[in-house]
């Protein structure tokens, strides 16, 4: 069976579910005021896309989410690696990480409103800080957990000590780092939506809220659908990228 067909078969229960949704609506099982039909949702989707700048809202949301995510990835991986390599960095950062670990980073959103106002920076900051901690921790654990003898082998084969973290530790830790990044990616979407819900100023999260307030429930469902599709696609894209980067792994 070809790969595409296998994927379609795997997701079939979801397609069946969608069909059941539409049938339930048609048959009158669903209160259209509270639960629009699939058909209504889809036509609302088209309407939003063509008339209500759905694409622009989506672009803005993705811009905020990606900026925060990539910043967190860059800072997080470097910090995690530094923590694993250098005792002083570790002694300074580890207690801070442990102390802030129990704090839900979304709780910082009100603080960011206070500090950064209601523009893009508050949302990007929320995504950045929320994703930073898990990435640092995963990278640190991954770098610590690699086989020390890989380092010794490279060292004895002539690699200078300062080069070893980037040449040896990072590739060896990469599988675990990518797993952590995947989780952080999902988190980045959640934080972006939460920030937009709370702060507003366009974007898909804001759109969902506005449509709800206006009573356009089919539109609201459509916007939720849009966010869901984007989040899901980003995850699958990331998986594919992981597969490419880690093709040396034993599958």
């Amino acid at each position, binding site marked *: 069976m070809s790969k595409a067909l296998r994927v379609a078969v795997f997701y079939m229960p979801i397609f069946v579910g969608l069909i059941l949704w539409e049938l339930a609506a048609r048959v009158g099982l669903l209160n259209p005021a509270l639960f629009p039909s699939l058909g209504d949702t889809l036509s609302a989707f088209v309407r939003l896309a063509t008339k209500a700048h759905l694409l622009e809202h989506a672009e803005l949301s993705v811009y905020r989410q990606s900026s925060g995510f990539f910043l967190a990835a860059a800072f997080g991986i470097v910090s995690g690696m530094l923590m694993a390599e250098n005792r002083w960095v570790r002694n300074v950062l580890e207690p801070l990480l442990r102390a802030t*670990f129990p704090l839900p980073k979304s709780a910082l959103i009100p603080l960011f409103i206070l500090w950064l106002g209601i523009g893009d920076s508050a949302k990007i900051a929320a995504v950045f800080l929320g994703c930073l901690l898990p990435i640092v921790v995963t990278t640190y654990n991954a770098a610590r957990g690699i086989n020390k003898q890989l380092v010794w082998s490279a060292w004895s084969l002539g690699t200078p000590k300062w080069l070893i973290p980037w040449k040896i530790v990072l590739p060896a830790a990469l599988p675990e780092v990518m797993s952590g990044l995947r989780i952080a990616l999902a988190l980045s979407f959640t934080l972006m939506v939460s920030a937009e819900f709370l702060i507003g100023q366009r974007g898909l999260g804001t759109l969902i809220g506005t449509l709800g307030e206006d009573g356009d429930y089919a539109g609201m469902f459509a916007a939720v659908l849009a966010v869901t599709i984007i989040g899901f696609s980003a995850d699958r894209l990331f998986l594919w990228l992981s597969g490419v980067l880690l093709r040396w792994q034993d599958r």
Partner: protein
Amino acid sequence: MMARAQFGWLRRGFERNLSVVVVLILWEITTRFGVFNNFLLPPLSKVLARGWLDLLDGEIPRQVLATGMLTLVGFALAAAGGVAAGALMSMSAVARRIMEPLVSVAFPIPKISFLPIFILWFGLGDASKIAMIAFTCVVPIISATFLGTTTVDKYFLWSAQNLGTKRHALFWKVIIPAAAPQVISGLQVAFPLALIIAVVTEMLTGGDGLGGYMIHAVRFAQSDKVFAGLLATLLTGMVFIQGFAWLRARLLVWHAESAVVGAT
């Protein structure tokens, strides 16, 4: 010798948290000297004072209780439903066929985006918040339970059968205990998540709880309250996490313990 051991423990605890202590001290000193805008970053002492006041007049305890209740109820629902669903998936091929794609899709999507839908259905009160918490937390719990119950080492099962356990009893006698560490790990991951969602939904719907407390503080430009709320949330989170870790240690006293991801 005893005394030295005791102080050694204290000394090590201090050394381990040195940078936190330093940050707190710096916070107080820099704000006192006006290095930072005192509105945006109120001095630590002011925050603690505000926190103490609100603690005494019962406001903070009330909010902690409200948030705590939401967290626990939502989590309990997710745990019960999630473990049952995960176990069902491992036992029934049909259940697995139906649920696997659902879980696979549910994982990466920002489930918080469904909150307005839940509010539409359940109103602005606690029901929609609890629904959101349960919805979000059930996914990792199902996944962990399914994984734990399906990857039980076959040698455990074969040994049990060899020693006389009948097939139908295998589930309760072998699979559940063997899967327990992984299931509890899943619960342990979902628990802080429940607190996060509780706080976020409170912020979004205004009203009660720590989330509501902080949002009101922003609206009324009371920055010291915002920080006091953050501290209260941080402490609540710590208590919950420690409590769960303690519970895990009691339940899994037999297990060669491996650390929970992230909670170094």
